[in-house]
């Protein structure tokens, strides 16, 4: 599906095409995104928001167009609810450091889950250490699903915030976040959804979900590196203190007193990644043109095909077999370390990830030091799965 739109997928190594199965780490970029980036620097480059000349006006407009497009893409109420950051990681840190520092106090509790990426663990742990709050952790089942009963029981009068992944970067599990959001709100807790994995593969409607914060990274969604998004409900953003200080986020500055701009400017200090934000719009339009429904269907087909073939593969153990999954499959091979599997597949120009996937607590949960992960983007097709299986056979042969 649309493989030809991605220049990097046209390259070969020793005659072998690139079989890119690491989209959960970062996606490849379609030509339209690369061209948008180049076009920006060749024709429009200027600093935004303060220039009276045409380039600056155009750059500002294009930058804000992306914001508007994201607003529509995830159905936010207002474009001022869309804040540009470096990536999902920074978005979570921003919330922890602004919303968190104001609202979370000693003995308060934050709920996260066993399947979180380090980006959705470390900022909360740092916050807890600063203010004296505590982490509570949702357990997961052997198939890799949230234990909703236990989740309910984790709430106490001290619970202020829940922070969970929309989908797991290791297990692929798509979590029942709408239910989990409802439960959080019933307990008067706010909830942040880490959509780093989900955003590129699912339709998102933040108003329907009713989440308080939603974060994701452009680079995993066919956009450039350096850009991420924090969505926050207006009434929350309004009350949050600024994050970084600098140009653009102020209204007036004197040495005695500073007044701050409103959201989103309040949270976008300094020159942002203007080129990246503008090029990300091309990625959003690219996704829109294909249609998220079509992308979901395509990736579910791949998931089904790959899951079936891998589960028949000798001495291979799948980890993460939830009912609702993204196109992400992790596994271990008996007696062959994931790192060796990764290296041997790489030799056939098959790119998979091997390691702890920035989810050490999850590795512990499944009692493995590391896993091999295969993850799909919209450009993958069944030939990629077949190549993977050949590669896995070669791996076993080498170790036989």
């Amino acid at each position, binding site marked *: 599906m649309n493989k030809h739109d991605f220049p990097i997928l046209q390259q070969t190594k020793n005659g072998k095409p690139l079989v890119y199965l690491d989209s959960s780490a970062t996606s490849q970029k379609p030509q339209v995104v690369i061209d948008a980036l180049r076009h920006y620097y060749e024709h429009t480059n200027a600093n935004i*928001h*303060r*220039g*009276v000349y045409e380039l*600056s*006006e155009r750059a500002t*407009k294009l930058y804000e167009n992306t914001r508007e497009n994201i607003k529509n893409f995830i159905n936010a109420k207002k474009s001022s609810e869309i804040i540009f950051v470096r990536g999902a990681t920074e978005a979570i840190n921003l919330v922890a450091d602004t919303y968190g520092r104001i609202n979370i106090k000693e003995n308060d509790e934050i709920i996260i889950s066993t399947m979180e990426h380090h980006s959705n663990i470390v900022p909360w742990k740092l916050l807890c250490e600063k203010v004296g709050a505590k982490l509570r952790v949702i357990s997961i089942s052997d198939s890799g699903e949230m234990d909703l009963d236990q989740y309910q029981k984790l709430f106490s009068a001290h619970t202020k915030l829940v922070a969970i992944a929309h989908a797991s970067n290791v297990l692929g599990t798509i979590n029942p976040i709408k239910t989990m959001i409802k439960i959080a709100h019933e307990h008067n807790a706010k909830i942040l959804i880490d959509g780093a994995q989900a955003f590129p593969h699912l339709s998102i409607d933040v108003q329907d979900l009713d989440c308080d914060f939603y974060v994701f990274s452009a680079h995993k969604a066919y956009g450039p590196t350096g850009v991420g998004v924090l969505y926050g409900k207006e009434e929350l953003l309004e009350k949050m203190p600024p994050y970084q200080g600098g140009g653009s986020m*102020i*209204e*007036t500055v004197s040495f005695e007193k500073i007044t701050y*701009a*409103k959201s989103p*400017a309040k949270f976008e200090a300094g020159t942002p990644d203007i080129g990246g934000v503008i090029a990300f719009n091309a990625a959003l339009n690219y996704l829109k043109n294909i249609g998220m429904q079509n992308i979901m269907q395509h990736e579910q087909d791949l998931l089904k095909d790959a899951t079936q073939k891998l589960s028949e593969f000798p001495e291979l153990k799948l980890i993460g077999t939830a009912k609702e999954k993204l196109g992400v499959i992790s596994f271990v091979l008996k007696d062959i370390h994931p790192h060796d599997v990764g290296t041997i597949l790489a030799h056939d120009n098959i790119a998979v990830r091997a390691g702890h996937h920035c989810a050490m607590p999850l590795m512990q949960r499944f009692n493995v030091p590391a896993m091999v992960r295969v993850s799909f983007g919209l450009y993958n097709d069944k030939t990629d799965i077949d190549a993977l299986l050949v590669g896995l056979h070669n791996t076993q042969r080498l170790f036989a």
Partner: protein
Amino acid sequence: MNDLRELYQETIIDHGRHPRNFGELCDATHHQEGFNPLCGDKLTLHLREKNDIVEQLMFEGSGCAISMASASLMTEKLKGKTKNEIQEIFSAFHEVVTTGDQKNIEKLGKLAVLIGVAEFPARVKCATLAWHTLMAIIAEKAGIVSTEN
């Protein structure tokens, strides 16, 4: 220089340099500050209201020709108007300077000279600063008005 002349019409340069109704108003019933953080323009509006009618309207401050002229022409235009009438003229003005649409231009009188602003998006905020400040008084908002709010 054609559309530049469009923007900087004689009237604008005249009002920019010699703003009318410039200064304090001793018996004002309302004062309101307005601020454009992008360029640093500041303006204070003084207004005397009686029985829902804006009897007198004056302003102070410094700014570019567009913002000074817009404030000056606005004070001339709105004196003696009711709040409702002001609301209507504001809507017409806002539409003209943001879109360049001529549809409601006859409602503006001399203010129509500001239509050229529509071609210069970066300057719309200059043209509307005094207006947003006024609308804050009418809506009875608290605090300084900023074009970035």
